[in-house]
């Protein structure tokens, strides 16, 4: 029986402190929604909100996995490139299976299975290099980022991989349709968030993840298999990327070297805006969810107004991100 009381104590006291801070991202999101409504009332129309949330789903799902990794004190820069690579593989696999006379549902299921397996394997490779290879996560995933990015360029022959139109029309509703007007990507994002929250807050694995990030040495002395915890986190991240790709491919039915460009930064930003500590030891799933929505809403609001010069778009984005985190600091410093 591993004695984790010390690490668990640390983790729970960290959580109590973080409870105040946890409100920060929601305050920031609420403020942004008000801003959006003021800028253009169209912002609050159901159609627009559904659009924004559906777009959020890819980086949102990836960011849930990222929350686990960052909570262990690690980082994964390869997720955007991995998403592009598995999108490419998924399209190639589904295009190859189509002439075999399989029903479209089978083709999509096999394609999805492929993405999930490759995603998880890629995550495992990252994890093994980090834990067995004893290389810094930043360097490992910087390396695999380059590898995945050039693999998709290679697969696409420098151009674009496009999904066979027959499968495309069958698969398209996965992005565009849903239940009672709520699109499937939003539903999947919500489910992944709930599962992520349960795993991080209510399971032993979640407590070990937090303990590992809070103090790796202490966690190791408490008989936590730190390497296994980390390995699982990277594999989980790979699975999340696979799931995001499952939702992304039906949108445009194509993958190219520009697919998923910058998703890693967006996912990491969502996690940090959400209040997860960059140095590890404290993860906030719901914070990450609002962080991801904040980032997607900024883009949306800027597109809904002609008042700001397009040349300043990135500056406005930068300001809002910094303000969102400042709001958290204020919330944290309150007693």
């Amino acid at each position, binding site marked *: 029986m591993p004695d984790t009381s010390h690490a668990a104590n640390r983790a729970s006291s960290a959580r109590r402190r973080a409870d105040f801070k946890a409100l920060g991202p929601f305050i920031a999101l609420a403020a942004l929604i008000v801003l959006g409504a003021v800028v*253009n009332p*169209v912002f609050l*129309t159901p*159609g*627009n909100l559904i*659009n924004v949330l559906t*777009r959020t789903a890819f980086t949102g799902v990836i960011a849930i996995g990222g929350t686990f990794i960052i909570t262990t004190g690690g980082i994964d820069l390869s997720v955007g490139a991995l998403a592009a690579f598995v999108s490419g593989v998924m399209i190639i696999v589904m295009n190859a299976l189509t002439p075999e006379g399989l029903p479209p549902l089978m083709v999509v299921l096999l394609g999805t299975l492929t993405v999930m397996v490759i995603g998880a394997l890629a995550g495992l490779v990252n994890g093994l290099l980090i834990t067995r290879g004893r290389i810094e996560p930043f360097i490992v995933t910087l390396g695999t980022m380059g590898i995945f990015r050039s693999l998709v*360029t290679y697969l*696409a*022959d*420098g*151009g*674009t991989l*496009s999904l066979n139109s027959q499968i495309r029309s069958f698969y398209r509703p996965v992005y*565009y349709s849903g239940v009672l007007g709520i699109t499937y990507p939003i539903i999947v994002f919500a489910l992944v968030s709930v599962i992520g929250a349960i795993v991080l807050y209510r399971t032993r694995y979640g407590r070990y993840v937090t303990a590992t990030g809070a103090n790796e040495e202490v966690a190791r002395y408490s008989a936590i298999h730190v390497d296994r915890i980390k390995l699982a986190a990277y594999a989980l991240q790979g699975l999340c990327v696979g799931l995001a790709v499952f939702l992304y491919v039906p*949108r*445009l039915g*194509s993958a*190219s*070297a*520009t*697919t998923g*460009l910058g998703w890693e930064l967006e996912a990491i930003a969502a996690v940090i805006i959400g209040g997860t500590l960059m140095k590890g030891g404290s993860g906030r799933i719901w914070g990450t969810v609002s962080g991801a929505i904040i980032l997607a809403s900024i*883009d*949306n609001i*800027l*597109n*809904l107004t*002609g008042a700001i010069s*397009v*040349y300043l*778009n990135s500056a406005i984005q930068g300001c809002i991100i910094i303000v969102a985190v400042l709001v958290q600091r204020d919330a944290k410093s309150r007693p």
Partner: protein
Amino acid sequence: MKFSIGLAALAVGMMIAAAPAGAADKKVLGVSIPSATHGWAGGLNWHAQQAKIALEKKYPDLSIALVTAGDATRQANDLEDLVQVRKIDALVILPFESAPLTEPVRQVKNAGKWITIVDRGLTDPSIQDLYVAGNNPQMGANSANFMVKKMGGKGNIVILRGIPTVIDNQRFDAFMDIVKKTDIKVLDSKYANWNRDDGFKVMQDFLSRFPKIDAVWAQDDDITLGVIEAVKQAGREKDLFILGGAGMKEMVKRVMDKDVLVPADVLYPPKMIADAMELTAKHMMENAPLEKQYIVDATLVTPENAKQFYYPDSPF
């Protein structure tokens, strides 16, 4: 330690001695282009490789050294390698950016090499022996003229721009100069970074924001693909048309098939790299006389002429 340094020196010495001996009987044409980081550049790489195969077959005494770079600094390093190691006689280059590559290319010129510049001009045009380029202002102007004519000089349009660069500004300014003189109202313009996903997002937001859009100037075919999906999702295919640009095979195909959503396309062909290589090789091997400039027209692709611009094997 000393031993290994000695070995390295020996190896370097052998390489230096060997290189001119191998290259003496063949003329070498160096080609430096950006790597395939987006659709258009992918087409550029494909056409360059096709031209390399065709030209080396046509001229057995010509060897072509094709290098690709991911950014301006690496491209400058490539130039040094091409001159020092590959011993090129002429250089065809599509500069990543104009200003940072002007001096590195001047060095190559000073080493006595022929210089062909493609697409993006250097800040000092006196360096180049030959300039091959698409016509960005003409592309904007042709797009505007087509839209004005098709819309009967009035209506609402939105514009999706590329990446903030000189190329994008030239297209946009030339387009606006013509549209300003008509009753066409530009509702707004936003950057979509020559990228499908951004085209999709920006267009979704334009559709939420403006209830009446009569036409979209996407000015790039990758952006157009994203725009098409957003328009389909909103169910507004019947209300508007989209004009892209570049000459992507999917778009040329749509024009050929008389798609009402994409009635035309304006060329900005990545094939210009192949033209530049061919002209330069012809000059090197046959001493063919050349004009100083060779501007590829931004031709309007319509169902009538689409066939001649359709390359089904190209990745772009």
